[in-house]
């Protein structure tokens, strides 16, 4: 298929465009429209009249981020009622992970009914693309992406790797890196 080229003609240079002031005024017009529309909405709300909600500025990171109900955030591993990790190390999440950020090593569980468990489980959050496939693939509901933690930061790449204990507790242990 040949590439199609669409030629766009530049607007002609004129005095109005060259002094810029007219365009500045146009921009400010948009800003002031938002100001007065939102001011109006907030005032109406204060008076108890139902309207569209006005825009709100959040002081992030001092205030927490507002997340949607289905937002995919940092993973957490779930525990059974007896406190052991639910993960049976079936490796389906590791298999489906498109970023290859999950590493699991399986071992024999002392419990005959459980049979298999994870010896180690780590997620490299620096590689994770937050697609949610791991939570989707898990047959035993052991991994969720609903920790509401979006501020995953570190000074070192290897600090972005969370191990099993950290994913279970939902807290990065600074000593583990």
């Amino acid at each position, binding site marked *: 298929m040949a590439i199609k080229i669409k030629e766009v003609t530049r607007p002609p240079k004129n005095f109005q465009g060259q002094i810029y002031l007219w365009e500045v005024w146009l921009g400010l017009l948009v800003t002031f429209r938002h100001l007065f529309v939102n001011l109006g909405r907030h005032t109406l709300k204060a008076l108890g009249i139902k309207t569209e909600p006005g825009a709100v500025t959040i002081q992030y990171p001092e205030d927490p981020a507002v997340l949607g109900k289905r937002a995919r955030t940092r993973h957490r591993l779930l525990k059974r009622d007896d406190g052991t990790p639910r993960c049976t*190390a*079936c490796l389906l999440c590791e298999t489906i992970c498109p970023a290859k950020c999950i*590493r699991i090593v*399986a071992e024999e569980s002392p419990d*005959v009914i459980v049979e*298999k468990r994870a010896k180690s489980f780590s997620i490299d959050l620096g590689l994770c693309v937050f697609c949610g496939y791991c939570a989707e693939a898990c047959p035993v509901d052991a991994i969720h992406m609903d920790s509401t933690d979006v501020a995953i930061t570190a000074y070192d790449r290897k600090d972005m790797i969370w191990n099993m204990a950290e994913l279970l507790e939902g807290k990065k242990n600074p000593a583990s890196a």
Partner: protein
Amino acid sequence: MAQFTLDGKKVEAKEGSLVIDAAREAGTEIPHYCYHPTLGNPGNCRLCVVEVEGAPKPMVSCRLPVKEGMVVHSNSPQALRARSSALELHLVNHPLDCPVCDQAGECGLQDYYMKHGQYESQVRENKLHKKKRVPIGPHVMLDQERCVLCTRCTRFTSEVTKTHELGIFGRGHKEAIDLAPGKTLDNPYSGNVVDICPVGALTDRDFRYKVRVWYLDKTNSICPGCSRGCNISLHTNTKRPWHNEGRRAARIKPRHNAEINGYWICDEGRYSCSKLDEDRLGKVMQLKPAPAEISWDAALSEISQSLAKNIEEKGKEGLAVIASGLLSNEDWAGFKKIFVEALKVSHFLFTPEPDQMGEEDELLRKKEKVPNLKGGEALGFGTQIKSESWESLAQKIESGKIWGLYILERDPSKVWKEKTKNLLDKLELIVFQSPYKTAIGNWAHYRLPATSYAEEEGHFTNFEGKIQKYEQALLPLGEALPDWDILQKLERHYKEVQSHALTGASK
């Protein structure tokens, strides 16, 4: 020959042969659990049912002889319904613990259920619990709940190994596979029951939870464990190195070859893969006078110079070569070229010695635990070119007749024991070339890393003289090179040294 119709196609087959066999030859795989080409056809899994026109009910194709003019439908609605009902019954007490089951990914139940299953189970009762995780032998783990009672394993122990360790106990829904009283599944072919088990009832203890089967790469290879030359499939895990305890070779499975090993391999060969990367040589080393890493070129040219110098001063009769049947046909050819044609060595040692002899039986295992003595024999090693014995070689070294020793993949210290140090101290040049570290490697002047059979391509000639190819499964470890390549490079270096000596003399 009889002609019959299978799914609308005309198929030729021998009169009286089984429909399931004829269908497979015609390219139609009819699902089955209990039927196995070498273990008979009890017809108890009811999965191979087909519709035969004129027959009042679906017929099991593994017990149905081919007749002239019969019309068989393997995928008609009637056959499919019968098959999915049979599968439903197989799953009544199956725990469906695929996430923790090692068979997942190569399981007969998974495969056939995806194709023929009823996705909504009608069973509302609780599943019956049986024994789980029972080690029934050194290599095999039993899970009775997953079993579909196809009896392949019991037939294997009664018909192939004739050791009768496994049997079916109980009646009705409590029927289960178990060990015969007082027995353990420890015959030398016990690993094969894992292969023939279509579900996860019998799994490998060695392979248990090491790596998922879908991460494995499969390579056609030949078992180097003995002179039988069994066809194997080498399963390797290289893409996710944190699995399988970091080992690259994950397991060995038999590959069907009716002329050599049939469907089986022995446990010795099967469980040898865990040692594939153990104690490997990775670097070219010069160990005397002081241990130092050295490049291939430098090592081979120093060896050639030392060989040339010693041959000049002490004569070519003073060089002895110890080789083993682990060399491939290609290695033997390179071996012949340098040691027979270029160096004209007169002392060879390649007969299998106590460390390379083992048990033998009528099924597969052979006495010589090296794969390719025949390949050497084809080039005259052991026939025209006679082999020394360990004693005669030791005597010759003792008396000072030998000044140099070139050792390929053997360990004389296993035979000479405490005499070894005294004997080797008398030598001017010891070269050790092998994939594996051995005690002798530490006494050598030069230690050259070679590739293992999994890291090179080549041919083995088995004890019957059948030549078989094995393929490369892994990348060479460290600086390792195939034996033939090392020998060929050494030959080139030696010829170079010789030509320099000649030009030097003419000046």
